[in-house]
């Protein structure tokens, strides 16, 4: 089983680089109330590094306001204050995406109905509907489950009630031989973890 899982993760992309989030949407609304919330509606595209997320709607939650640093000691020259981000010192903490969610990262793609991107934790939780479960594609191989947890920093994948469909030989690194393609193999598991 370990060989299988290693093989499935062999073509995984590199760690997600740091950086800002580029976005586009038809409309955007920014609410500056108790919590700062950014709403994106219509053909929403989010890009960070090589991670791309497409959905019908997205909500960005901004992180709680950071506490001010202690005052500088007297007598020393004041440093220029660091600029505060959008809406009084808050950064994007979490994105929630809804409706026709499509994720692309390297050779992997994933589809679902609802997703939550946790920026500090560098994770994305993808879920579907009772009728259509979320699914992760890597080439011909598919991984379906009730809930798919993508770790964007390590590329590990954690799946609840997983159904993995493999289209490759059992021994990783083995020289491909001519002849019929390997018979697809289905692996069902209550909890499956793919380590990169």
């Amino acid at each position: 089983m370990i060989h299988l899982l290693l093989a499935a993760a062999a073509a995984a992309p590199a760690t997600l680089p740091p950086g800002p989030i580029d976005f586009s949407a038809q409309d955007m609304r920014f609410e500056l109330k108790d919590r700062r919330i950014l709403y994106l509606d219509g053909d929403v595209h989010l890009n960070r590094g090589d991670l791309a997320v497409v959905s019908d709607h997205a909500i960005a939650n901004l992180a709680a306001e950071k506490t001010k640093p202690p005052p500088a000691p007297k007598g020393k020259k004041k440093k220029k204050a660091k600029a505060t981000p959008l809406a009084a010192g808050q950064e994007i903490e979490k994105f929630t995406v809804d409706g026709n969610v499509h994720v692309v990262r390297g050779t992997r793609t994933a589809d679902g109905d609802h997703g939550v991107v946790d920026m500090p934790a560098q994770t994305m939780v993808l879920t579907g509907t009772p009728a259509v479960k979320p699914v992760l594609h890597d080439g011909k191989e598919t991984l379906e489950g009730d809930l798919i947890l993508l770790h964007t920093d390590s590329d590990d994948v954690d799946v609840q009630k997983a159904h993995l469909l493999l289209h490759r030989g059992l021994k990783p690194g083995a020289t491909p031989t001519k002849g019929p393609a390997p018979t697809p193999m289905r692996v069902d598991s209550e909890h499956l973890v793919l380590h990169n």
Partner: protein
Amino acid sequence: MAFARTADGRVTARGTAANLDYRRAGGQLNAEVANMELVPQSGSRLAAFGLLRFAAPHATGELQARHGNAWGGVRFKSTRGDRGATDAVEYDGDLIHGDQPVALSGPGYVMNGHGLVMRTDGSSLSLSHGVTGTLQSEAK
């Protein structure tokens, strides 16, 4: 020409204009090359922005009706580092809105849209008809 507005003993707005025509009876105002600074009330939602500066080549307003227009290239800057630019905006009660391309930027964000609606108390801002932008993320 310079002008200032006070409320409760403090200056809430001040500005300059190359030409200013103000009809006191009807509260109608016409200005050319207008620059205005708004001083947000301490503790308000807008206070985090610091001083708000607006500039427009042309502006008209009806003070009593709380209605006005600015056009010819409207610019906005704040002490915090926010900037905005659009061709024209309309002020209508509690809203500022426009249907021209708009560019906003500031610490941690850049946004572009093709329409703008903003509440004057700073509680919400909407861009529409195709929005693009960049946001700072929390992740390291």
